[in-house]
């Protein structure tokens, strides 16, 4: 859909009124997934000043069965978020998709307050590789017996080749994000250490290019304008939401370009009336499941000219103190990668930045507009974008 088509649509205003997130950790043996989610829900409802049993009218959760080890996992979601005997549904995707779903539900006029949940209990998974393997095409790709990270290897090589980006740029992303994470209290992978490239997973992809898996839970509460204004003063508005997919077949998807991110951004920017993202966006939290993805996504989101993201990176534009900080939270490389929660934890970071409540990694200056973006990981070509403003 073109930008002009979005202009003529007048939509209800929807705000983020509460956020809650648990610290990200490599493992959380002390709590079950329900108990982890309950913690995040308590925080979010306290932040919003709502009672979920009384005030929240609908709940949208995010999960995939093979990440949980349970079929029909949506069975296990209502109690710990206060949703029992209420409209609750699961979107099998990243938390930003669920946020977009909640946004749509409020836009219909049927609900005023909707909660969004996403989590990762990655430490319950004994070994992630066989699960990624199950996502590969069973006829054409899986029989090759290769680790699914070969897909990231092929994409990375294609991207480096066509964008003239090099491994030093990838290292700089890793360093920047892990360093940013040093001042983020929920991050688990913060360090000043120099990235190493000695353990290659799928050339050119090395182990430290890959964000380590983390456990965590996140809940975000959205409300329609009138309700939102009655709940708090420092509202953060959803200005646009987009989600899109390129071909799901590796053979026909773009190897070197994040087309899904560009399409999703076009949708979200269209709603938000953003025409020049470099100028209009003050902070961006974007997917960095693999180091190179941050640059590829920055380009797709219009935060750099085509094939120019590495130059912006070199100039320090994306640094915490740069003109357009990317991943001040530390991103997945610095915070840890939380599967389908990856996007929602970024939404929470942008909300805190816009509120001026990000703590030690609060970016300087006036923060008016931020974006959060998610990608669903290999072998998908799907992702979502949300534009948030004060």
């Amino acid at each position, binding site marked *: 859909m073109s930008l002009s088509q979005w202009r003529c649509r007048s939509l209800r205003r929807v705000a983020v009124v509460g956020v809650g997130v648990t610290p990200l950790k490599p493992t*959380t*043996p*002390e*709590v*079950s*997934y*329900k*108990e*982890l989610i*309950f913690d995040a829900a308590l925080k979010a*409802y306290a932040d919003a000043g709502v*009672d*979920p*049993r009384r005030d929240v009218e609908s709940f949208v959760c995010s999960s995939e069965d*093979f990440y949980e*080890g349970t079929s029909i996992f949506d069975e296990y979601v*209502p*109690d*710990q978020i*206060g949703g*029992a005997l209420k409209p609750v549904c699961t979107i099998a995707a990243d938390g930003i998709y669920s946020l977009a779903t909640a946004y749509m539900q409020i836009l219909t006029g049927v609900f005023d307050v909707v909660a969004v949940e996403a989590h990762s*209990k990655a*430490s*319950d*998974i*004994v*070994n992630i590789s*066989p*699960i990624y*393997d*199950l996502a590969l095409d*069973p*006829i054409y790709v*899986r*029989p090759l017996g290769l680790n699914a990270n070969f897909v990231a290897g092929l994409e990375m090589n294609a991207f480096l080749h066509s964008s003239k980006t090099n491994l030093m740029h990838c290292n700089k992303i890793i360093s920047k994000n892990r360093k940013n994470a040093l001042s983020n209290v929920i991050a688990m992978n913060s360090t000043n250490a120099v990235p190493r490239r000695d353990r290659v997973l799928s050339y050119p992809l090395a182990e430290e290019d890959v964000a380590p898996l983390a456990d965590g839970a996140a809940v975000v509460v959205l409300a329609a304008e009138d309700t939102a204004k009655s709940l708090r003063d420092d509202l953060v508005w959803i200005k646009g939401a987009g989600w899109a997919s390129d071909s799901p077949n590796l053979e026909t998807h773009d190897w070197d370009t994040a087309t899904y991110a560009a399409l999703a951004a076009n949708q979200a920017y269209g709603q938000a009336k953003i025409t020049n993202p470099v100028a209009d966006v003050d902070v961006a939290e974007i997917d960095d499941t693999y180091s190179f993805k941050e640059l590829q996504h920055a380009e797709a989101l219009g935060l750099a000219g085509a094939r120019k993201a590495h130059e912006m990176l070199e100039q320090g534009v994306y640094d915490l103190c740069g003109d357009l900080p990317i991943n001040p939270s530390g991103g997945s490389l610095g915070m840890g990668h939380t599967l389908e929660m990856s996007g929602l934890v970024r939404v929470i970071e942008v909300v805190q930045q816009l509120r001026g409540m990000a703590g030690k990694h609060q970016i300087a200056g006036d923060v008016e507009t931020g974006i959060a973006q998610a990608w669903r990981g290999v072998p998908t070509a799907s992702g979502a974008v949300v534009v948030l403003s004060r």
Partner: protein
Amino acid sequence: MPIEPQGTGLREEELERSDVLTVSYQPMARYAWATGIAISRFLRGLKDGEIVGTKCDQCGRVAVPPRIFCEWCFRRSGTWIKLPDTGIVNTFSISYISTDTTRVKTPTIPAVIQIDSAGNAGFLHIIGDVKPEDVKIGMHVKAVWLEPEKRKGSITDIRYFKPTR
């Protein structure tokens, strides 16, 4: 508009004979779920021959299996309570099939056991020491435990529930 549905139905023999091409695959996904605060406590209780529940300080509901929250009041549950190992059959079935639908000679009798003094609350278990035709909804039953040294902190530490008579 009447539809002309598409689709190519196959018989099992056609697949077994490889009349059409297939790929076989064994998934290797493995999990080790952290049982957390509430279920760990429940399972430790079972190891000790006890059924542990929780009671909400606000609404007074008893929950078994226990949880750290009351889903109706949405607050942390207040109190751990020890429950009796007796209850009534809320509903039951007489099952002649195993998990993969193969037939079994001796039927299994799954039931929801409403634990005494826990209101509506109970859990799924098996009825034993009784003829299938004698099982009734509302029947009072008691847990039959594994010997203490054989218990491992599992729902199967209770072998089954049997009528108290």
